[in-house]
């Protein structure tokens, strides 16, 4: 299945490939969960020092209590939030759109060769010093000093133009990469050291950031460091030992939690388990969602994995409904009357087509076998003698009747006039040889037919080896 185009517009670490900032690919990879391949959402540290999204690791531990990376035993209750990583991820996500815009500005420099993520050994820090660092790694990677100047130019361009329509005035000056103040090239460094006042217009840049990422707005509202976390945190739910709990008790518990109690017992267990996972993962979040939002998440689960999941196909679900004893047969028949009729008409049409094809095929066959027989004709005549000729003609008609009753070739004679490609002369029983030709075949069919014309009774035995239609 080919994903739709708009779906493909998800931020992916390969966005950095073929840009001057390809070095950010491993950075981004470090900020992404190994399980869901998305940016860490409430990253949790395991006792083996690996990190996963809270919901990813909780879900995995519900199937297998080991670390997905190193397979060490991991207890869910021992997971600890990795808050520093959470801050780093949030910061990177916020900066990502702007960085990508910068990276995607057309450059004169050749793009670095494609490489696999694992091969990257350089790592980058983010933040202000990033600029200098990035330049040095790039000049290491892109061979040839002549491109460095072009890249520096591009870099200044890119940083100053948050909106792409901005065009640089041709005044022989350059803008400070931070505060956009214009000055001579050699003044930039001292200015950066001493007098730069910082970004001039925070708003415009944050607006451009939030364009591609709906989450970034709310995230940027959060203070960089949480000084007083844990105001009123929701309490984590305990896991249930499902084998120890009776149906009624489980239903009661789920009703208390406000969950649906539809479905079989295994479905109830899975739903409860999923709710516990969603709920507990939410408890790890810096910005816990509201209960109704979590219920919506459970709804998504229900549609994809739960009771309302497409079990195998739409047809299978319908099939299950139809087999139900309370099924409204009348209503169903009325509702689908038209489709039933269409289906019947279709079936008739295809059957006719198939029959027609069979007919044509059998005609071909007949032609072929006639040719064969034609070659063998002298022998036939020797066997049957001239006296059998009239009988042959008579039997040709009898034979067609026999075939109508029996074989797939049955309707050859009957329907031939309808066929455009057919030339009756070719198949007419009138040509004198036809009767003779038909005779051996006839002999073969006669025994199955019942009344055997006298005088021909022994013939099949003699003629069979020679005239058996293949």
């Amino acid at each position, binding site marked *: 299945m080919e994903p739709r185009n708009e779906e493909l517009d998800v931020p992916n670490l390969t966005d950095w490939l073929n840009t001057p900032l390809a070095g950010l690919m491993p950075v981004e990879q470090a900020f992404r969960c190994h399980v869901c391949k998305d940016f860490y959402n409430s990253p949790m540290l395991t006792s083996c020092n690996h990190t996963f999204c809270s919901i990813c690791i909780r879900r995995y531990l519900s199937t297998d209590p080991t670390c997905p990376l190193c397979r060490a035993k991991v207890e869910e209750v021992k997971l600890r939030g990795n808050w520093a990583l959470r801050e780093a991820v949030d910061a990177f996500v916020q900066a990502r759109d702007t960085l990508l815009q910068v990276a995607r500005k057309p450059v004169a420099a050749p793009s670095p060769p494609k490489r696999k993520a694992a091969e990257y050994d350089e790592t980058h820090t983010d933040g202000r010093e990033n600029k200098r660092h990035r330049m040095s790694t790039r000049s290491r990677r892109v061979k040839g000093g002549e491109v460095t100047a072009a890249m520096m130019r591009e870099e200044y361009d890119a940083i100053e133009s948050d909106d792409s329509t901005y065009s640089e005035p041709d005044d022989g000056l350059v803008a400070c990469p931070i505060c956009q103040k214009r000055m001579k090239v050699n003044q930039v460094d001292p200015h950066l050291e001493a007098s730069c006042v910082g970004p001039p217009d925070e708003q415009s840049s944050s607006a451009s950031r939030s364009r591609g990422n709906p989450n970034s707005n709310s995230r940027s509202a959060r203070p960089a460091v949480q000084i007083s976390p844990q105001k009123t945190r929701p309490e984590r739910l305990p896991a249930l030992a499902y084998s120890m709990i009776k149906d009624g008790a489980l239903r009661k518990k789920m009703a208390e939690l406000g969950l649906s109690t539809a479905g079989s017992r295994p479905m109830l267990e899975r739903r409860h388990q999923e709710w516990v996972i969603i709920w507990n993962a939410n408890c790890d979040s810096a910005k816990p969602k509201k209960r109704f939002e979590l219920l919506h998440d459970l709804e*998504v689960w229900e549609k994809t994995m739960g009771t309302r999941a497409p079990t195998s196909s739409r047809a299978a679900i319908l099939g299950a409904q139809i087999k139900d004893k309370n099924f409204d047969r009348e209503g169903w028949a009325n509702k689908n009357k038209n489709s039933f009729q269409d289906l019947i008409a279709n079936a008739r049409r295809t059957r006719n087509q198939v029959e027609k094809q069979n007919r044509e095929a059998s005609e071909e066959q007949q032609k072929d076998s006639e040719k064969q027989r034609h070659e063998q004709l002298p022998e036939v005549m020797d066997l049957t003698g001239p006296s059998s000729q009239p009988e042959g003609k008579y039997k040709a008609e009898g034979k067609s009747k026999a075939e109508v009753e029996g074989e797939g070739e049955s309707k050859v004679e009957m329907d031939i006039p309808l066929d455009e490609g057919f030339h009756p002369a070719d198949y007419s029983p009138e040509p004198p040889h036809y009767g003779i030709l038909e005779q051996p075949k006839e002999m073969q069919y006669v025994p199955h037919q019942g009344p055997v014309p006298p005088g021909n009774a022994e013939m099949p035995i003699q003629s069979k080896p020679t005239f058996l239609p293949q």
Partner: protein
Amino acid sequence: MAQSTAHRRLLQEYRALTNNPGPEGTPFEGGVFPAELRFPKDYPLAPPSMKFLGEVWHPNVYPSGLVCISILHPPGDDPNHYEHASERWSPIQSVEKILISVMSMLAEPNDESPANVEAAKMWRDRRGEYEQKVRDGVRRMLGL
């Protein structure tokens, strides 16, 4: 945006694969091996299954085309009793890793517990005939 975890994750992998199509310079570069990957609803918790659509004569490929390698087996069950848990499926694996594993499997069959016993015997005892048969199969698949 009602997207399941499996859906989102597969989108990520699809993008990564289309933008960065794996290693180059293997002996199989240029060969075309049409295959079908089927993903379960709880992907990536459970592994996908992989089936070659053409004819692949290989000790670790069932005559039906189904690929039998450890990375496609969940850690819980070990049908062949020789795989290390560390080689088997884990949600940190990905389509890319599967394809890499399959490429190395094609080059270096594992005949310890073959899926195609005949192919494994031929590979062990009559390597020349095996290679000829594989080459013929590849050529047929390319329509040559």
